[in-house]
């Protein structure tokens, strides 16, 4: 993933150009997201909706799919409705690539959010968070806190999807680089399926097996609640600390209170709003892809941020519940 | 004498079938009222209406002068109507005691009083002469005959005012029937009324007081004395005289078709050797549980042999492979049609042709030809209805049996194994089946018939073998065979000689 070259653009794409785009016609945008039964994704769809409502000239529709296959089916149906722009947050980048290509070929511009398509011609513009970087940040944070010495447990997301793979890879790569002596050991690494109750039981078992844990890296704030609970139930909250991903209200609250929950890593869910703004711009400006106006970059990477007790106040505005 | 049961003008219509079209029946205290009628006449339907298992379409049922609640089995039971159904209607997964007391279990509230249940069950079974049936065993693990005893015990487990028995003797042997009759006599002496259904006409005279004849859903005669001559009863039933019940005895040839050498599978079969020649009808008599069914299963390859050999036309049969047996020309009509022979949700056609689909299939099945062929076979057996599309589950018991027979008539076998082929079949059809067996033999087949009706074996077989405790204890030439003689062999020498006396 090429974070260096592209992460330059700010998150507030479109706000400035919004006013001048009023050519009288309206833009129809269809957004497709995975099921929003999950904090971060829920925030994504709410923000997108809100951003769309700010503009009179945007006809907005939000679709939710249960899994990658049904999302593909949904987008196929959306294509038949011929919107101007499709905003797609794919459940699985690879799986959704062909259907996005199909949309592009049908003359519908696609804005890819968060999880990358695997082919360059699948999207006109891309706005993404960087899951690999989240792993990197988490590893850095934990390594610094523990001074490269101790036992770390990783509670992963759902096995087999790119989000999980990237968050794991960024984490393990960085640990290896940063603590070459091997003083920082990942003693257990198990999937919690982004699910609090799975996180709970998995952590319960790991607590049985590992008598000495210094830090827990979880892939998600919602799931982390189950992990936190397992640690507390075992009465071992003084022994270790824990980090999350996402930036939920609950997590921020606990970070503020101090204790077990030490940090979370987030990229602003507001990227969905940015995506809608971007989509609107693209939609208003027909033939945009030929002209490639400099104010709409092809790829925007939203940098991930570390939220700790020190800076939690400034990030609280971005928290979702 | 007071009437216990009065049935007035009872009508029952199933979708597309009028099973009862105005039937009358009355049963008085202390009598055994026999119900007679050909297969499909509506006997079972009638008694199910009384027991509450089904709801009549119209008509009146009075019990002790009061209307009986309709379609409410629990209600009928509570008033003292106990029923033994034709089809063994037990729950295989309950123990014997639990089955006997299902829905009226003795309780130490809130728990079951298991002790009392076991003791009472043992007492009931003892009363029926079967104290040895283990009351804790699952009913499904018992042999059919033992299950039937459990059904009877169940019927007697409550307060009985009216006892209804639908062909209870079909799977019992002579000894067990005698015990049953003993119990019935005791009950009638106490004033209980009994409705008794059977296709064995000899039983009518042994136990019955009065007879009602059903034919085609109507009462052909009601309340006539049990002493009415058999000929007359048969005529009432089938609307004509049955000229000749038993056909001529086939003589057989010298060509040995089937040879069983020292077949053994413990504990049921303990070393049996026999031969069936072309053109012969060989009878296999014995008491229930003597191992006849097990022997047929061994020959047919359904169970593995412990020891011994089955030879068909000079070549040994692979043991444990029914398909191989069928391919070599064996056919088996098993004794329990519901669980072993029929796919109940299938049409008559499909049940008839299942063993011989090859004849209708190139790549695809020729279902028109299949249907026509099946219809022809069913007609030949006078199956009612012979509608080839009719679901077998809805047929009367006797007609289901005919469907099974039709299957093996269709598939022309070399040797046919028939396990109780006339069980539950009416007189006219019995005659028909005897005739067919004899014709098959005449055409060169070998037939091995197991039957608990020793009388029929005595009349239709070239030779009769008698089994006892898994061994063949006697071979009687057909011409010398009498029911009495066969029974002597079948019963162990130590057994009470009065049993033999009583039967004959």
């Amino acid at each position, binding site marked *: 993933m090429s974070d260096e070259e592209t992460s330059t653009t700010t998150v507030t794409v479109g706000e400035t150009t919004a006013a001048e785009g009023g050519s009288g016609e309206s833009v129809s945008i269809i957004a497709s997201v995975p099921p929003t039964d999950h904090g971060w994704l829920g925030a994504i769809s709410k923000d997108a909706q809100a951003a769309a409502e700010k503009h009179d000239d945007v006809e907005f529709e939000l679709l939710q799919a249960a899994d990658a296959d049904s999302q593909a089916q949904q987008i196929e149906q959306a294509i*038949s409705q011929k919107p101007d722009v499709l905003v797609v947050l794919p459940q699985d980048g690879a799986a959704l690539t062909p259907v996005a290509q199909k949309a592009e070929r049908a003359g519908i511009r696609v804005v890819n959010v968060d999880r990358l398509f695997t082919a360059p011609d699948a999207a006109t513009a891309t706005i993404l968070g960087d899951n690999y970087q989240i792993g990197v940040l988490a590893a850095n944070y934990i390594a610094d806190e523990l001074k490269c010495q101790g036992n770390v447990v990783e509670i992963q997301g759902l096995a*087999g999807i790119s989000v999980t793979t990237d968050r794991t890879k960024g984490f393990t790569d960085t640990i290896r680089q940063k603590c070459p002596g091997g003083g920082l050991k990942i003693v257990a690494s198990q999937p919690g399926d982004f699910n609090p109750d799975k996180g709970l039981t998995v952590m319960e078992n790991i607590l049985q097996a590992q008598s000495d844990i210094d830090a827990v890296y979880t892939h998600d704030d919602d799931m982390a609640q189950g992990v936190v609970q397992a640690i507390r139930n075992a009465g071992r909250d003084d022994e270790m600390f824990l980090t999350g991903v996402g930036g939920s209200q609950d997590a921020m609250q606990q970070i503020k209170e101090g204790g077990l929950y030490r940090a979370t890593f987030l990229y602003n869910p507001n990227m969905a709003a940015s995506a809608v703004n971007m989509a609107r711009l693209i939609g208003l400006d027909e033939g945009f892809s030929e002209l490639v106006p400099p104010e709409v970059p092809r790829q925007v990477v939203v940098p991930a941020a570390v939220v700790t007790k020190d800076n939690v106040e400034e990030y609280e505005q971005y928290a979702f519940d | 004498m007071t009437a216990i049961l009065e049935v007035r003008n009872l009508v029952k219509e199933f979708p597309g079938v009028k099973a009862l079209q105005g039937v009358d029946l009355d049963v008085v205290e202390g009598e055994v009222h026999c119900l007679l009628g050909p297969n499909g006449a509506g006997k079972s339907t009638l008694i199910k209406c009384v027991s509450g298992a089904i709801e009549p379409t119209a008509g009146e049922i009075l019990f002790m002068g009061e209307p009986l609640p309709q379609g409410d089995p629990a209600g009928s039971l509570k008033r003292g109507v106990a029923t033994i159904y034709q089809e063994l209607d037990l729950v295989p997964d309950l123990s014997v005691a639990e089955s006997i007391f299902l829905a009226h279990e003795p309780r130490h509230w809130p728990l079951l009083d298991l002790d009392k249940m076991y003791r009472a069950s043992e007492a009931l079974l003892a009363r029926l002469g079967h104290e040895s049936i283990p009351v804790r065993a699952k009913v499904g693990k018992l042999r059919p005959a033992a299950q039937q005893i459990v059904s009877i015990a169940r019927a007697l487990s409550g307060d009985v005012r009216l006892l209804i028995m639908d062909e209870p003797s079909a799977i019992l042997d002579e000894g067990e029937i005698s015990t049953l009759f003993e119990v019935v006599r005791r009950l009638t002496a106490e004033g209980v009324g009994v409705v008794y259904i059977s296709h064995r006409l000899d039983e009518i005279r042994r136990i019955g007081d009065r007879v009602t004849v059903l034919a085609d859903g109507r009462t052909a005669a009601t309340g006539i004395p049990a002493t009415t001559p058999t000929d007359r009863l048969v005529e009432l039933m089938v609307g004509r005289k049955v000229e000749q019940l038993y056909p001529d005895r086939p003589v057989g040839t010298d060509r040995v078709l089937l040879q069983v050498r020292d077949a053994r599978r413990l504990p049921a079969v303990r070393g049996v050797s026999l031969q069936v020649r072309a053109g012969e009808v060989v009878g296999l008599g014995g008491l229930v549980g003597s191992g006849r069914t097990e022997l047929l299963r061994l020959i047919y390859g359904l169970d593995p042999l412990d020891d011994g050999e089955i030879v068909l036309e000079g070549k040994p049969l692979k043991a444990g492979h029914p398909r191989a047996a069928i391919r070599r020309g064996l056919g088996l009509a098993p004794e329990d049609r519901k669980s072993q022979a029929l796919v109940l949700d299938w049409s008559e056609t499909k049940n008839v042709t299942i063993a011989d689909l090859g004849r209708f299939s190139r790549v695809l099945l020729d279902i028109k030809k299949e249907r026509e062929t099946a219809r022809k076979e069913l007609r030949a057996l006078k199956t009612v209805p012979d509608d080839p599309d009719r679901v077998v589950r809805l047929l009367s018991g006797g007609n289901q049996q005919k469907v099974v027979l039709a299957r093996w008539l269709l598939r022309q076998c070399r040797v046919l194994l028939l396990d109780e082929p006339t069980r539950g079949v009416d007189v006219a059809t019995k005659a028909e089946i005897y005739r067919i067996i004899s014709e098959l033999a005449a055409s060169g087949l070998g037939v091995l018939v197991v039957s608990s009706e020793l009388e029929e074996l005595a009349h239709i077989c070239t030779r009769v073998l008698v089994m006892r405790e898994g061994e063949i204890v006697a071979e009687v030439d057909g011409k010398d065979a009498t029911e009495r003689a066969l029974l002597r062999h079948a019963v162990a020498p130590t057994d009470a000689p009065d049993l033999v006396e009583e039967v004959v």
Partner: protein
Amino acid sequence: MTDTAQTWRGALGRAKTLEFQEYALAIVVVLLFVAGAILKPDTFPTWDNIRNMLTQSSVVGVLAIGMTFVIATAGIDLSVGSMVAAAGVFGGIMVGTDGTSSLVFILAAILFATFLGTCNATAIAYGRVVPFIATLAMFSIARGLALLLNDKLPVSLLDLNGGSFGDPRPFSLLWFGVGRIFGIPVSVFVFLAIAILGWVVLNRTRYGRYVIAVGGNREAARIAGVPVRRIIFSVYVLSGFLAGISTVLLCARLGSASPVSGNLYELDAIGAVVIGGTSLAGGRASIVGTFLGVLTFALIFSLMTQLNMSTEIQQVTKGLIVLGAVLLQRPEARY
């Protein structure tokens, strides 16, 4: 006897229950379509949308045809969804990154799924493991294999030969996903062909008769000479094989093979089969019913997404429609 004989001819006493259920389900399908046409008159009753719904139903549809055979023998196959995932990934790694051959993928996927089905079949027919448990084990094993085979990563299949997107060469992988013949998607042809073939095999061949006999009364079937064990074996192999075909259709549309695909397909397939009137107790099976059941689910899904319901409302609505559909087709009283 003639008068009663006549009434016996009466249609109702015959094996009509199943047909009735099929008609009722057909009505449900029509009702759903009409509802869609009323609620979304511009986009729902279009040729494009119909084509789309049929394409969507093809993946689960093919599985459901196999499932009908399995359930007809009173069995069940919980592993089809996982097999789809495993077969896809296996096919994907077979072609490798330089992969040029669609055929290799297609064959590898189908063979692998058939192999997994054969494992089920062996455990059930020869190991005498209850189908529910054997296929539950495979549900877990195949999903594990899907993750294991390519290190939890999806495999892209876009570079297979013949495969430019707009106009894939006939019989290339992508052609099965987006190709058309006479304007009808290839995957729809595949589904229809398998459904029709399934119907013929089930209703017009000796094999089909045996399948139902085994489910209807295993002991009776054995005594009548049906090779019970082989029949049971065969239906699980068949289910695996069709899972392979389903994999091809899915991956062709997705252009990739993902180790997490096929999730809960077994529930959809079983649901379609059961709603179509095939009895889980075995012995009664209807391919037409299954086909209609698959359509019902596809219609519900399409309608709800077009109405842009949120996930949770969708789930509630879907449940209610399924319940309604079954209540509508409910046959006579059963107890």
